[in-house]
């Protein structure tokens, strides 16, 4: 049972900290920082299901976030649905799309799969840029009235913050649950040697498609909340290829394959990035730093921060999963 794993409670504790910290003294700047950190953790954790667990590099992971954002925003504002319901429906819809895509493209392996994921991102972006109901390349803007159902813009910002934190906690719990399941063991077997896994009885085609679809759900949900909070969406920010790449850097940095590794990498990278972006001298310099960091990690700590931590304290593996 997942409740018996110490790390489950650690996740809840982290989520509680995220909720408590900005609430203390109504610290809005901190909240705005933390929501970006939470988004990074969500993206990195779900990407970890593909890269860290299954061994398939998805360069276009951000497509789930952007597409979820579009669908959710459309339902919540144009259709006037409840925000949480819109997010869940967007999540399910994006997951179903991912499942269908996955069954088709996951027959490819290695570099070929990685390349096609970029193609998927480009194709979806091109489609959305020409899709009338979603505002084509200008995207969609939310009028201030759209926040009325949540009791005005001020309250809506806090509510979306809590919802994003919930999605973050769920992402980590999902990673933990998959890691400790039979399904997860099947994925690990695919990562280590797909041919051997199949000979041992793992239905690799179905497993890969399922995890690809599962890894789409929470990013899509989070996309709805985030773009709702921002009040606007357009194709270039929803499907930002750079953010997709940065997701991979986060994973490498924190340590792929470990729940805490993905979360740590996401959190640290985003913190660093926002510092650099807002610094007047170093603005836009963050990609240079990201590249340098990636190089250092790949060369000297292939297991990322968490891998290094496990090496120093091997017993930590059992608690910090």
């Amino acid at each position, binding site marked *: 049972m997942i409740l018996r794993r110490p790390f489950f409670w650690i996740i809840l504790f982290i989520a509680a900290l995220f909720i408590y910290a900005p609430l203390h003294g109504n610290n809005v700047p901190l909240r705005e920082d933390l929501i970006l950190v939470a988004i990074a953790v969500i993206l990195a954790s779900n990407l970890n299901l593909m890269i860290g667990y299954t061994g398939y590099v998805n360069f276009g992971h951000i497509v789930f976030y952007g597409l979820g954002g579009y669908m959710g925003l459309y339902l919540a504002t144009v259709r006037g649905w409840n925000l949480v319901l819109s997010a869940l429906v967007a999540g399910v819809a994006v997951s179903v799309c991912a499942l269908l895509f996955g069954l088709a493209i996951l027959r490819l392996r290695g570099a070929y799969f990685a390349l096609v994921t970029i193609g998927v991102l480009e194709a979806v972006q091109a489609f959305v840029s020409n899709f009338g109901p979603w505002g084509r390349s200008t995207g969609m803007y939310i009028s201030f009235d759209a926040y009325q159902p949540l009791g005005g813009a001020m309250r809506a910002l806090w509510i979306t913050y809590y919802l994003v934190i919930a999605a973050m906690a769920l992402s980590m719990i999902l990673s933990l649950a998959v890691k400790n399941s039979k399904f997860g063991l*099947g994925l*690990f*077997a695919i990562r280590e*040697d797909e041919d051997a896994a199949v000979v*041992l*009885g793992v239905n690799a085609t179905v497993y890969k498609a399922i995890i690809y679809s599962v890894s789409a759900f929470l990013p899509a949900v989070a996309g709805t909340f985030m773009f709702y909070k921002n009040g606007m969406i357009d194709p270039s920010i929803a499907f930002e290829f750079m953010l997709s790449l940065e997701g991979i850097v986060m994973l490498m940095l924190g340590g792929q394959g470990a729940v805490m590794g993905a979360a740590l990498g996401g959190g640290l990278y985003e913190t660093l990035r926002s510092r650099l972006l807002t610094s007047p001298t170093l603005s836009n310099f963050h990609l240079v730093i990201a590249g340098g960091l990636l190089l250092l990690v790949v060369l000297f700590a292939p297991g990322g921060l968490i891998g290094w931590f496990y090496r120093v304290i091997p017993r930590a593996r059992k608690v910090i999963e």
Partner: protein
Amino acid sequence: MSSILEVRGVSKRFGGLLAVSDVSFSISEGEILGLIGPNGAGKTTLFNIVNGVYKADQGTISFAGKDITGRAPDKVVHLGLARTHQIVKPLNDLTLLDNVTVGACFGREYLDLKAARAIASEVLQRVGLGDRLNMMARSLTIAGKKRLEVARALAAKPKLLLLDEVLAGLNPTEVALMVELIRKIRDGGVSVFMIEHLMQAIMSLSDRIVVLNLGRKLAEGRPDEVVHNPDVVEAYLGFPDIVDKLSREQN
């Protein structure tokens, strides 16, 4: 005795190369059938066809009364046909226990994690790796990796086990242990179909032997019949009468 595996007229072509050509044979329940032949004879290809890694161009394969021709490897394992690989395929960054748990989880009984772990540690004891459950598979020696292959296949609770050169690269002590293990597996009611180059071992283990050369079945029979078959001797050594000549010279 009823037969567990029935292979009829199987052929497989890779481009211009006819790797396996019209091969037929059967394995009885509880039998150890050896498969020998010079390098490139098509032995491993035949294994790959039997467990579904390759699709046969022609012919049929039935296992335990079911037609399994063209069925994917993961489906074949569920029916109770497990195998090892000549070139070992350990799941490197998983522990030995996890490696074997995969076999038990997705094998014939499709066990849940907890039951699979219990079976896995029991099987690892049986193959002599019981003291290294939490070791990473990558750090095993080649002999250890071969045992791990056998353990993973055994954990699937197969009715028929395909062993692809599990003795190659082992030292004499390790060979003796492995031969003993294979006997025990058979005595536990599992039929065995094995490829082996180590003549002494396969001659003593097998009930019957099939000889493959250039993709065709050259001979089939009891081990002592097969070694004296002139076609077999020619395939291996080039001269059909070399055995007689050598034994005359020795006398």
